[in-house]
């Protein structure tokens, strides 16, 4: 019954374009996001943040702030004892939520205030006196590995290597020295990518309430309310079961709402004040003190035979993790050459610390940077070999049976079909004009499963509640209702999906790694199948026949066998109505660690026009081809492809954190950190391929992340083709393009 194997069944509901159930709430302003909840007696909390990139905190005097009328609580690190019991990652989270002995980046929190209103809280912040001793800082990933760079986290420094180098993730196969020795052509280049932010439109926001009896509630915008619960409870010494976390509607996350930031402080302030506390970040705080992605610096080397067979490839990429270590370089190393079958390859992802905010996941984290280097190098290789860039990729493409650079042997995968679809797409034949260029690039992302728990309850009228513990950031309720309806044989409209709070279901892993529809979808299928077993038992009881004689078909119980031919089918509604007299409520439940997430590949085509006078790049046409496994709701699959491509376009052309020599962020607002607006983009064309994931009953693969991987490389190739000068640094902002043209004498 719980066999996750793909069966190739025919679908009635899956694949249709139904209206999302939360649509009306979201177009009428009724949907409640992180900042939209209030509680009786609530206070407003604000954070005081370091104006320095790196400074010792010698003293914090909060006495004047505490005395200001209307101030109910002020806290510093002194109010947050270390309860992490040697858990290094948890201690990092504690230190990141509030600086202890040192402020580690511009924007690092140093004190929090809760007051009766915002203006009182603002006044209180001004009354807190912090005595800093400024320390040397470093914000560039390569500078951080210079001999004279200040060491950001001495507790992570290892003998025999630079103190800011945390670790290296190394992956690959074969013998690259021998491979390069066999190559006829070798291209070796260096690249850099800027630090970007997920740019979700909703700032971090929460409403925290802790009672003196040790219970608490947290309403918060998050991708993982269970993980927030576990982390906050541990940091504050609370019992996990006594902290109820409810995920609000979430106004975008893209990985940035997978970790706690100010939430433990809001809870600590509430506990100290014994009042509910609302805390909402400003946009400036979001940029400075949440978790943007890594900036990188890398060298890529690829060698091929004259016929285009790639025989060796090497990548080494340094990932700037911010002030706390992450696994970002490691992930990047795993993804580098995943699209290809290369006998000798090595990819090294290096994790480096800097005086910048703690990096968090950003949609297929670490893959876009590595893909920028690899896909740019492959394009240059194709020029040296005189082979069409799509054909060169196809010649070396990974297929079913190819061993991935990080170990597993691929099952059925979609990279070759996406490249073939690109090759055959009318977009590839469209004429280009002056100053215009076309680029193609590929991308890979793992996708994950993870711990998942869900409940399916059938009401007395036969309508169904499906409660899940993953969040809905872009139509997941619709997809999951479709899956439950498909499995039960009822209509989509008869299923209502709820996002359960942490007290209503067992632990669910954070909604990341494109796992929401994959894993909660799988849990919904198995919960529904359990409910069907109960429905069959109840039908047997109603008919007074053995349950073995009951089958479930098209939403009804049918009695099998000639001797029962007088029994007309009982619909789910018929059985639900009688539940009270046949054994009580009818439900299905499923909990498991979902395995079998299907890897995902995409290939993109982009046309650009570059104005040689201003250096400005306009995207003329964009096509995404991606394997979805099975598109449950095609509208929202297309939406994921388009949104990911748009984020990649922003990253490729405009977005980057700009730090001054003082180590302070200079563009912490949407005016100066410019994400693409409607007039910047053309219509983004999409093509969904469906190569079923053998590890899911419906063939589902995660779809949310992969399409942010190719745009940097695709646009880099297109811009380079348009201007005739290779671009090695992202973003390809107008000043950078003009500089490249100038240096090339164009």
């Amino acid at each position: 019954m719980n066999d996750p194997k793909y069966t190739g069944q025919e679908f009635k509901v899956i694949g249709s374009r139904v209206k999302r159930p939360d649509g009306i709430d979201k177009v009428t302003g009724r949907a409640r996001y992180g900042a939209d909840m209030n509680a009786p007696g609530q206070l407003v909390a604000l954070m005081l943040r370091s104006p320095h990139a790196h400074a010792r905190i010698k003293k914090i005097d909060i006495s004047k702030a505490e005395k200001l009328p209307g101030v109910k609580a002020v806290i510093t690190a002194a109010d947050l004892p270390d309860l992490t019991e040697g858990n290094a990652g948890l201690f990092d989270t504690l230190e990141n939520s509030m600086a202890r002995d040192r402020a580690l980046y511009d924007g690092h929190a140093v004190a929090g205030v809760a007051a009766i209103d915002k203006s009182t809280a603002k006044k209180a912040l001004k009354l807190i006196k912090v005595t800093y001793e400024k320390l040397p800082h470093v914000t560039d990933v390569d500078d951080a590995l210079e001999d004279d760079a200040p060491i950001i986290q001495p507790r992570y420094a290892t003998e025999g290597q630079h103190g800011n180098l945390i670790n290296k993730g190394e992956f690959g196969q074969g013998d690259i020295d021998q491979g390069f020795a066999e190559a006829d052509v070798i291209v070796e280049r260096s690249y850099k990518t800027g630090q970007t932010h997920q740019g979700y439109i909703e700032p971090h926001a929460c409403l925290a309430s802790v009672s003196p009896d040790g219970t608490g509630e947290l309403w918060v915008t998050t991708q993982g309310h269970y993980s927030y619960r576990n982390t906050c409870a541990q940091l504050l010494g609370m019992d996990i079961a006594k902290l109820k976390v409810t995920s609000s509607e979430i106004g975008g996350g893209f990985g940035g709402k997978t970790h706690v930031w100010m939430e433990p402080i809001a809870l600590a302030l509430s506990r100290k004040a014994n009042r509910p506390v609302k805390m909402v970040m400003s946009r400036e705080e979001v940029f400075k003190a949440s978790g943007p992605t890594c900036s990188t610096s890398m060298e890529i080397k690829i060698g091929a035979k004259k016929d285009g067979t790639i025989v060796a490839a090497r990548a080494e990429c340094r990932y700037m993790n911010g002030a706390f270590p992450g696994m970002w370089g490691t992930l990047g190393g795993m993804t580098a050459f995943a699209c290809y079958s290369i006998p000798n390859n090595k990819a090294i992802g290096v994790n480096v610390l800097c005086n910048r905010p703690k990096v968090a996941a950003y949609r297929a984290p670490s893959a876009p940077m590595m893909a920028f280097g690899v896909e740019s190098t492959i394009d240059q290789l194709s020029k040296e070999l005189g082979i069409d860039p799509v054909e060169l990729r196809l010649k070396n493409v990974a297929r079913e049976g190819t061993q991935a650079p990080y170990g597993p042997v691929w099952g059925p995968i979609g990279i070759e079909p996406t490249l073939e679809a690109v090759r055959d797409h009318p977009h590839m034949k469209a004429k280009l004009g002056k100053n215009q260029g076309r680029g193609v690039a590929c991308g890979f992302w793992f996708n994950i499963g993870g711990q998942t728990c869900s409940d399916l309850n059938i009401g007395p009228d036969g309508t169904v509640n499906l409660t899940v513990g993953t969040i809905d950031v872009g139509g997941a309720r619709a997809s999951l209702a479709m899956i439950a309806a498909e499995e039960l044989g009822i209509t989509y409209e008869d299923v209502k999906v709820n996002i359960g709070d942490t007290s209503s279901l067992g632990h669910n892993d954070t909604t990341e790694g494109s796992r929401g529809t994959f894993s909660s979808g799988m849990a919904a299928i198995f919960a529904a199948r359990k409910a069907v077993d109960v429905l069959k038992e109840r039908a047997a009881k109603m008919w007074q026949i053995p349950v073995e004689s009951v089958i479930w078909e098209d939403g009804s119980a049918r009695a099998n066998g000639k001797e029962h031919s007088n029994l007309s089918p009982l619909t789910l509604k018929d059985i639900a109505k009688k539940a009270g007299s046949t054994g009580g409520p009818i439900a299905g439940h499923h909990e498991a660690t979902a395995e079998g997430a299907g890897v995902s590949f995409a290939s993109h085509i982009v046309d650009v026009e570059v104005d040689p006078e201003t250096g400005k790049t306009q995207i003329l046409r964009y096509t995404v081809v991606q394997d979805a496994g099975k598109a449950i709701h095609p509208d929202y699959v297309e939406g994921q492809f388009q949104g990911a491509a748009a984020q990649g376009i922003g990253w490729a052309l405009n977005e980057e954190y700009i730090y001054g020599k003082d180590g302070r962020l200079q563009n912490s607002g949407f005016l100066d950190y410019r994400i693409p607006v409607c007039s910047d983009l053309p219509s983004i064309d999409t093509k969904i391929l469906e190569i079923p994931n053998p590890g899911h009953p419906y063939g589902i693969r995660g779809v949310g992340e992969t399409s942010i991987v190719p745009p940097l490389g695709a646009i880099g190739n297109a811009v380079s083709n348009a201007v005739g000068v290779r671009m090695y640094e992202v973003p390809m902002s107008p000043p950078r393009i003009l500089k490249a043209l100038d240096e090339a004498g164009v």
Partner: protein
Amino acid sequence: MAGVHVTTTINSDPVEYVCPADESLMDVLRDRLGLMGVKEGCGTGDCGACSITLDGQLVCSCLVLGAEAEGRAITTVEGMADGQNLHPLQEQFINNAALQCGICTPGFLIAAKALLDENSDPTETEIRYALAGNLCRCTGYDKIVKAVQAAAKDLRK
């Protein structure tokens, strides 16, 4: 700071409130009047999530003072539907999957309505420029543009 007494009209209803002279209209609408459909994405007029119309003119309510609403007529997303009947823009945003997370949606709806009130048959380029003051990070704008085109067609019927 002394409070300012304001008499205004919001979504066709008469409303009175008292607010500090330096409080933004966005904060008044959200925190004093409970119109939470007005969203704050930046507080600096860069994202358009708090878009409303003031005497028919599209503005970011974070850039207007609460005191400035005296004697004016305000429309927020809460005032778009006619009872149980959604505005065609609201209908078409749902039909076209023009929202993912939905946080920018109220602002887009208000901005799109301001456009269609002025221009009943905008070109795609006109739509894209009219909505350039509203940031969406989820959709890549494609389905938003299609929803506005579909709603414009409905409204011309």
